[in-house]
């Protein structure tokens, strides 16, 4: 299978001496929906900046669909569509102008550009706003406009750098659906996000960057399988005065009608209910306390920080 993106030993040292990337290796297969996760300042945006020519690399190689950016960057760039973290269009232009201009920078003639601009603005719910000044669009509309702009040249690799940041849940869900559809149609997608449930539900593979290093690069399923414990929250039918003495698991009474329990993967959840039945406790509803990937992410970042401290 062709690699949509292949990064080898990529290093970036900024002029102030900051080593943002410390020789990372990364490979994203064609057709993948890939999550690139990491804390703020971990190096995600630097990596994306290098891929999209907004940041000069210090050393290493980057290939996009086998095209080395040092050999033929224009061709490599023609394969990429990018949705950046921050708004980066002229707010004095209209959505139509912004998308049409972007098509023009890729050499697409105005007839085709107009057709595509209409298609993507319609699909992203912006067609009615096509002639409004972009400054007047809402935050969610601006983000969707950047997606339309990134798609107008039909990129084979779409990079989304926190596309749903600050977007309300309804629009976020519709953006997820749209992006998933784009992926199903064959476009490789790299997503960075702080909403880890987004990565968990959308992405097939995940890499975690911390402090300029890739500390994990595997499939989402494999990563989740490493989760050793989960926390469940139980909403009770009747209030409790005190925490009953349960035989297994770590139980906490959060308030009179809410219980929390930590259980290991081996225990399974059947045991919870048998203990609840033994104590005549009726449960109204049950849910995971935290997102599973979020838990793993935090564990990994913590252990990576611990290792670093030990080395120091």
């Amino acid at each position, binding site marked *: 299978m062709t690699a949509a993106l292949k990064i080898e030993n990529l290093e970036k040292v900024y002029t102030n001496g900051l080593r943002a990337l410390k020789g990372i290796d990364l490979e994203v297969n064609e057709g993948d929906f890939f999550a690139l996760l990491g804390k703020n300042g971990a190096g995600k945006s630097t990596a994306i900046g290098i891929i999209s020519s907004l*940041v*000069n690399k210090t050393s290493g190689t980057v290939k996009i669909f086998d095209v080395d950016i040092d050999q033929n960057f*224009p061709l490599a760039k023609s394969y990429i569509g990018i949705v950046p973290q921050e708004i980066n269009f002229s707010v004095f232009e209209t959505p139509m102008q912004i998308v049409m201009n972007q098509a023009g*920078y*890729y*050499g697409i003639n105005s007839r085709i550009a107009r057709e595509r601009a209409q298609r993507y603005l319609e699909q992203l719910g912006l067609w009615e706003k096509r002639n409004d000044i972009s400054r007047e669009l809402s935050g969610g509309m601006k983000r969707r406009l950047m997606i339309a702009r990134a798609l107008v040249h039909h990129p084979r690799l779409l990079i989304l750098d926190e596309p749903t940041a600050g977007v309300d849940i309804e629009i976020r869900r519709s953006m997820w659906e749209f992006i998933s559809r784009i992926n199903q149609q064959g476009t490789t997608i790299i997503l960075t996000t702080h909403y880890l449930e987004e990565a968990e539900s959308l992405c097939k593979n995940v890499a975690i960057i911390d402090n300029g290093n890739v500390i994990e690069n595997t499939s989402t399923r494999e990563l989740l399988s490493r989760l050793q414990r989960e926390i469940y929250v139980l909403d009770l039918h009747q209030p409790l005065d005190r925490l009953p003495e349960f035989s297994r698991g770590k139980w906490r009474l959060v308030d009179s009608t809410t219980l929390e329990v930590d259980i290991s993967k081996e225990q399974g959840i059947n045991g919870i209910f048998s203990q609840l039945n033994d104590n005549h406790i009726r449960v109204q509803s049950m849910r995971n306390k935290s997102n599973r990937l979020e838990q793993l992410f935090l564990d990994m970042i913590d252990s990576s920080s611990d290792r670093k401290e030990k080395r120091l």
Partner: protein
Amino acid sequence: MKWSQIWVAYLTIVRKEITRFTRIWQQTLIPPVITTSLYFVIFGNLIGPRIGDMEGYRYMDFIVPGLILMSVITNSYANVSSSFFSSKFQRSIEEIQVSPTPSSVILLGYVTGGMARGILVGVVVTIVSLFFSKLSVHNVFVMLSIIFLTALLFALGGFMNGLFARKFDDVSIIPTFVLTPLTYLGGIFYSIRLLPEFWQGVSHANPILYMINAFRYGFLGISDISLSTSYTIIIAFSVVLFLINLRLLNKGYGIRS
């Protein structure tokens, strides 16, 4: 990119630039017309008759070519420096950066936009000058080629300013402290033959002197400088600025971390 695609990319940048300055025509096209009209009224109509003839021409007729060229210089320069810096500031320059558009096309696109504004303002000022002066044209080719080359040179200068600028103040420093003094001392209002010999020599170090004199030659057929020297200097400066800008752009100076 194929040539046809490069052409589309170039036209896109030019169209975007022209749309930008025509959208804000109250800020880009009207002020230079008002300023130059004031020059015509004050220096040409009120003070001019007291000065008398200059190099055998009415003072008003003598200053018109210089004032037209001054508006071309300031507007070509300002358009590119402010537009490019705004693109950097708003980060909309990234739209072009991430695309396969070659650096030379980005440079030419912005420069063409600046030239378009400079020449358009020059044309409007020329029309206004017809109310104050009977313009005669001595050599159309010289007049058109000098206006074109001057707009090119200062658009290239504006681009370099835009590349180096890190804050809005940086965009106005060069026009205020370099461009305006050089333009005023470049022989718009006087012939350098009126100056003492030492200051005539100093004036020859001012590149704008060559442009104004060549342009005046196009209208009146008089010049303090030989035409070939003027063309050589304007073209040489343009080539050097183009190459420096291209090199800076390829390295990502001011636009890539």
